[in-house]
């Protein structure tokens, strides 16, 4: 049996009595196991618990699909979200054998909606990276062409969907870690508004930027996932109590009169010619569909990577201080003193990119440099947030490329961290400003590598944002 690629298709099989959750989960696990040596997308395959959860649903699936939006749907979750009783590594040696005592709210909500967790996905260590080459458990490969990176840091979650293993998965996005791999793998990836989804149980990288969101093969399924995971959570004081609208019913495909802002600053130097052509063609399709294209400006675009790598690393240096070999995780052998315990544990536990970011963040926060770096970045961050506020006075959504290039080859940028960082230019600003953004496939390069268009919405305006993405998806499939 070939596994269907959307939630709707799986539910149709259940409704017709042509499949049971046990059968769907068994097929999914077979595919995952067959492909994992080639793709390295998974760190833990929860075969036993998934099979038990599926079997428990077999008899009630007919009624469950009426009441639970994800009944019997196999899902994959990035391995930086805590899952009680299931190893959660963050792609790091320091948490290599860590089994959390609780489950992240977003994962709990998926399970309450009937989803079955089949595997934990590989990622850049602590979500730090743009290629999923930084995992302590090896590089993830792009299923479109295994010589290429899948993007990152949620590479494994993107591959799970792009390889056809599961219809939907969860990633986390701190500076583009959902949208860029979605673009590189040819699928839909959504970063919700900061605060839309609880971060409880998401191992913190940069707390003011981190947000959980879905991968899917269609905008509809991304909307279904967002519906399930959204909402205030008493365990996360930064989760918003803003009303959660019905995202699915917002997908009318009608964008007549929708004002789509195009910032020329995101189409300048460094943008690959093929990406430009495809994204411009996609904007033309939005226009054909009835949208009004307007010029808007994001005048500080050239500074966003600098701001991001100061703020994200400063927060990371603080957040990752908790990994000290005392309460959980790896501990060095025979420490001579407490400080020797800390330092050797962290040397053995962290990979080079994590150390680089802790170093950069510690530097930016250190005495003598705080004003010139960290505080300066926070001032420019306020300017970036204001740029969006100004732009959204003139438009409803903003369209840009998701990434300046299609996927690059494995190893191509791994020795040049700055070159890797510069690839994040179109995605980090939305995290700094807290606005939602989605990457939707809009074609492929001449080498056959996927290209994504990024649509950006105003705070808590995911309904309109997703409808714009849905309209494009409809128009593009004609």
């Amino acid at each position, binding site marked *: 049996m070939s596994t269907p690629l959307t939630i709707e298709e799986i539910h149709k099989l259940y409704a017709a009595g042509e499949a049971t959750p046990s059968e769907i989960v068994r097929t999914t696990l077979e595919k995952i196991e067959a492909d994992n040596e080639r793709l390295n997308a998974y760190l833990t395959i929860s075969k036993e618990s998934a099979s038990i959860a599926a079997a428990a649903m077999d008899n009630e699936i007919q009624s469950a699909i009426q009441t639970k939006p994800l009944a019997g749907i196999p899902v994959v979750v990035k391995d930086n979200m805590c899952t009680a009783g299931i190893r959660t590594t963050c792609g790091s040696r320091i948490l290599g054998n860590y089994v*959390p*005592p609780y489950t992240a709210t977003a994962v709990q909500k998926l399970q309450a909606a009937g989803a079955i967790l089949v595997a934990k996905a590989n990622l850049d260590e602590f979500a730090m990276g743009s290629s999923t080459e930084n995992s302590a458990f090896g590089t993830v490969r792009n299923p479109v062409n295994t010589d290429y990176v899948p993007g990152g840091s949620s590479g494994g979650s993107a591959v799970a969907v792009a390889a056809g293993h599961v219809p939907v998965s969860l990633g986390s996005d701190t500076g583009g870690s959902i949208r860029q791999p979605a673009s590189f793998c040819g699928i839909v990836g959504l970063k919700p508004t900061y605060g839309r989804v609880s971060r409880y149980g998401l191992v913190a990288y940069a707390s003011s930027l981190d947000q959980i969101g879905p991968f899917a093969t269609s905008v509809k399924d991304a909307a279904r996932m967002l519906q399930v995971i959204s909402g205030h959570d008493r365990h996360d004081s930064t989760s*918003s*109590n803003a009303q959660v609208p019905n995202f699915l019913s917002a997908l009318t495909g009608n964008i007549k009169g929708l004002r789509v802002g195009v910032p020329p600053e995101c189409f300048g130097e460094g943008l690959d010619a093929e990406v430009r052509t495809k994204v411009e063609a996609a904007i033309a399709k939005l226009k054909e569909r009835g949208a009004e294209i307007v010029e808007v400006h994001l005048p500080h675009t050239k*500074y966003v990577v600098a701001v991001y790598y100061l703020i994200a690393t400063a927060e990371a240096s603080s957040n990752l201080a908790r990994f000290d070999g005392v309460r959980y995780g790896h501990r060095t052998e025979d420490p*001579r003193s*407490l400080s020797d315990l800390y330092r050797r544990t962290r040397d053995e536990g962290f990979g080079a990119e994590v150390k680089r970011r802790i170093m*950069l963040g510690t530097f930016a926060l250190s005495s003598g440099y705080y004003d010139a770096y960290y505080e300066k970045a926070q001032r420019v961050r*306020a300017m970036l947030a204001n740029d969006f506020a100004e732009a959204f006075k003139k438009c409803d959504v903003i369209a840009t490329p998701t990434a300046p290039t299609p996927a690059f080859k494995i190893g191509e940028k791994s020795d040049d961290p700055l070159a890797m960082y510069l690839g994040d230019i179109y995605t980090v600003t939305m995290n700094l400003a*807290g606005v939602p953004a989605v990457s939707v496939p809009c074609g492929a390069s001449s080498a056959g590598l996927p290209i994504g268009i990024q649509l950006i919405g105003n705070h808590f305006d995911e309904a309109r944002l997703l409808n714009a993405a849905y309209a494009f998806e409809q128009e593009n499939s004609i």
Partner: protein
Amino acid sequence: MPITRTEVEKIAKLANLELTDAEKESFPAQLSAIVEYIDQLSELDTANVAPWQPRSVGNAASSFASRDDVVEASLGQETALAEAPNADEGHFTVPRVIG
């Protein structure tokens, strides 16, 4: 601004990090390149811009919520210690700190 090997070692100490010899070799040049790139922020006049504050994210409807300060059940000692690499008699144990 270039970051020297001495500074790299100082920052590593502040961050409670031991570095490998390879990292001590590669980090000065890599971090210098990154900081030099970041230094372009000094072009911007931010004298009249207040630093970004978490509460400025979102709109009025997103105001951060607080809950009543009520004591609730927590993990419990056994669960809290279950993942400790070294625990004894209900405590996390570490090397002797005071002689």
